[in-house]
C-alpha cells in the first residue's frame, strides 16, 4: 500500500527525494563555483577564489602525514644504506687503502688547482648571496591530479615564503609559489596549463612565454615563424615576469611546429626533472638589477627604432659624425621581444639587427 502524504509538496519531496538532494548539492556547488569565478579575492590570482578555509583545513590535515612519510622514507633509505655500508666495509677498507696511495700522489698535483678553485668558489658564493636569497624546501606532496599540476613544500609563510616566489633546482626552474600556508606552500609547476614564465632563447635571444600544456608538457609560445630556430637550443628565464631571476635554465627545444597563428609551437624538455623532485630552493629575494635589466633597455630601443622609421634628412657621408656608429653598435644584442612588440608583423627591425651582425646569420641553420 503506497504511503499517504500530508500535502502535495511533501509528497513531491518524498517521491523525488534523491533527485531533490542531488539538485540541491549541485546547486550549492555551482553557486559556490560561480562566486569564485566572479569575485576573486586577489586579482593576481583569479583562480585562488575565496574558499581559502577548506584549502587550509585539507592541507593542514594532510601535510603532517606527508611530512612523516617523507621523513620515514629518508630514515629507511639511510638505514638501508648504513646496513649495506656495514656489510661491505671490510672490502671497502682494503680498496680505500689502495686508493689512498694513489690519492697522495694526486694530492700534490691538485693542491695547486685547489687554491684557485677556492678563490673562484668564494666569488661564486659572494655572487649567489647577493643575487638571491633562497630557502631550501622538501617536496612533500602533490595535487594528485592531471588537471592541476601543483606541489606542496614543507616551508610556509613562517619561513618567509610568499606567493609569487620562484621555486628552482640547480638544474632549472620548477614553478612559482601560488599559495603560502603557515608551514606549507603550494607551488604551481611550469607544466600546469595556467602557468606562465618569461622565456628567452639562449643563442638567438628571442623572447617568448613558457607555458604548460594540458598534457603536462612545457611549451614556448609567441616566437614568430620568420625566426630561425633549431632543436636542442636552450631556453632560459628572461626575468621579464618579475618572478624568476634572469638566466635560469628552463629547458631545451625538443620539437618545433608551426601554428596557424604565425607563431611557432615549441615543445620543451624541462631542465629540472619535474617527475622526481625531492628538494627545491625557494627564491625569497632577488636583486633588482637582475630583474630590471631587460625592462630598462626596452623603452630606449623602442624609441630608437621609432626614430629610425621617421623620415630624416639625408646627410652627406662626410658630415656624418663617426660617433653615431657607437650607439648603433650598442643595440646589436637588442632582444627580439621588444622587436616583436614594436613590430609584430613586419619584422624589418629584425633584418636591421641581422644586417649589423652577419656572423650571427652564418651560424644559424637554414629553416
Amino acid at each position, binding site marked *: 500500500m503506497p504511503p499517504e502524504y500530508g500535502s502535495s509538496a511533501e509528497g513531491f519531496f518524498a517521491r523525488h*527525494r*534523491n533527485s531533490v*538532494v*542531488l539538485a540541491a*548539492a*549541485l546547486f550549492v*556547488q*555551482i553557486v*559556490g*563555483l*560561480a562566486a*569564485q*569565478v566572479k569575485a576573486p579575492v586577489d586579482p593576481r590570482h583569479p*583562480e585562488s*577564489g575565496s*574558499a581559502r578555509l*577548506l*584549502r587550509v*583545513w*585539507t*592541507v593542514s*590535515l*594532510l601535510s603532517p*602525514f*606527508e611530512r612523516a*612519510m617523507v621523513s620515514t622514507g629518508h630514515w629507511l633509505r639511510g638505514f638501508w644504506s648504513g646496513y649495506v655500508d656495514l656489510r661491505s666495509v671490510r672490502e671497502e677498507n682494503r680498496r680505500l687503502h689502495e686508493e689512498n696511495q694513489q690519492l697522495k700522489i694526486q694530492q700534490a698535483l691538485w693542491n695547486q688547482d685547489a687554491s684557485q678553485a677556492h678563490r673562484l668558489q668564494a666569488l661564486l658564493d659572494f655572487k649567489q648571496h647577493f643575487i638571491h636569497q633562497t630557502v631550501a624546501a622538501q*617536496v*612533500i*606532496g*602533490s*595535487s*594528485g*591530479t*592531471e*588537471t*592541476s*599540476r*601543483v*606541489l*606542496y613544500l614543507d616551508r610556509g609563510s613562517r619561513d618567509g615564503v610568499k606567493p609569487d616566489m620562484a621555486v628552482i633546482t640547480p638544474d632549472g626552474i620548477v614553478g612559482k609559489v*601560488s599559495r603560502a600556508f603557515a608551514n606549507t606552500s*603550494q607551488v*604551481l609547476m611550469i607544466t*600546469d*596549463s*595556467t602557468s606562465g614564465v618569461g622565456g628567452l632563447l639562449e643563442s638567438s635571444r628571442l623572447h617568448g612565454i613558457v607555458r604548460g600544456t*594540458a*598534457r603536462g608538457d612545457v611549451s614556448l609560445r609567441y616566437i614568430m615563424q620568420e625566426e630561425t630556430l633549431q632543436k636542442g637550443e636552450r631556453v632560459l628565464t628572461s626575468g621579464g615576469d618579475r618572478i624568476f631571476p634572469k638566466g635560469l635554465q628552463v629547458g631545451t627545444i625538443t620539437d618545433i611546429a608551426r601554428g596557424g597563428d604565425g607563431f611557432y609551437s615549441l615543445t620543451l624538455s624541462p631542465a629540472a626533472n619535474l*617527475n*622526481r*623532485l625531492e628538494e627545491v630552493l625557494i627564491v625569497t629575494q632577488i636583486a633588482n638589477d637582475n630583474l630590471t635589466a631587460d625592462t630598462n633597455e626596452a623603452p630606449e630601443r623602442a624609441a630608437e627604432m621609432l626614430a629610425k622609421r621617421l623620415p630624416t634628412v639625408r646627410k652627406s657621408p662626410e658630415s656624418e659624425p663617426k660617433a653615431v656608429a657607437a650607439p648603433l653598435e650598442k643595440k646589436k644584442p637588442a632582444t627580439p621581444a621588444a622587436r616583436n612588440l614594436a613590430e609584430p608583423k613586419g619584422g624589418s627591425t629584425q633584418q636591421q639587427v641581422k644586417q649589423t651582425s652577419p656572423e650571427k646569420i652564418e651560424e644559424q641553420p637554414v629553416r
Partner: protein
Amino acid sequence: MALSITSRDQFEVYRFNPVVAIAVPLLAIFVQAYLPLKLSFFNIFDLPLLVTIFFAVARRNPITGLLTGMIIGLLQDSLTHSFLGLYGISKTVVGFAASSLGVKIDVENPGSRLLMATGFYLVQKVVYYMVARGMARMDLQLDLPHALGAAVANGFLAIVLFSLLDKTKQRS
C-alpha cells in the same frame, strides 16, 4: 561477466564502521597526493574516485552516495590550484549515479566492476571538463585517447582495490 538486473531486495546493502568511512577516503586522498612524487605515472589513477564509487555502490543509497562524492571531490579540489567545486560537482554526479546503478544491477563481480569504474571515470572526466570550460572558462582540452587509457587503467585498479575494501564491509 554477468550484469544481472534484479530487484533491490536481492542485493545486500552494506554499512561501514565510521572510522573506515572517514579514514579510507582520507587515505585515498593522501596516497593520491603522495605517490605521484615517487611514481609519476600514478597521476593517471584516481583513487578518490574509486573510493567514491565503492562506497556509493556498497551502500546503495543515492543520497549517501552523492554526499560522499561531494565531500571527497571538494577535498580533492582543495589540493589543486583550480576552483573549488570542479571535482566536487563531478564526483557528486558519479556518487549519485553509482549508488543508483548499485540498486539496479549486480556490481559485485570483477567484470562489472571493471566496466563500472571505466565508465564512471569517463563520466567524471566529461562532467569536469564541461564545468571547467563552461563555468570556469578554463582552457582545458579533453585528450580522448589518453582519457580512455586512463579509464581502463582505473578499471583494472578498481578490481584490486574493491576486493581489498570488501573486507571492510558490514552487512546492514
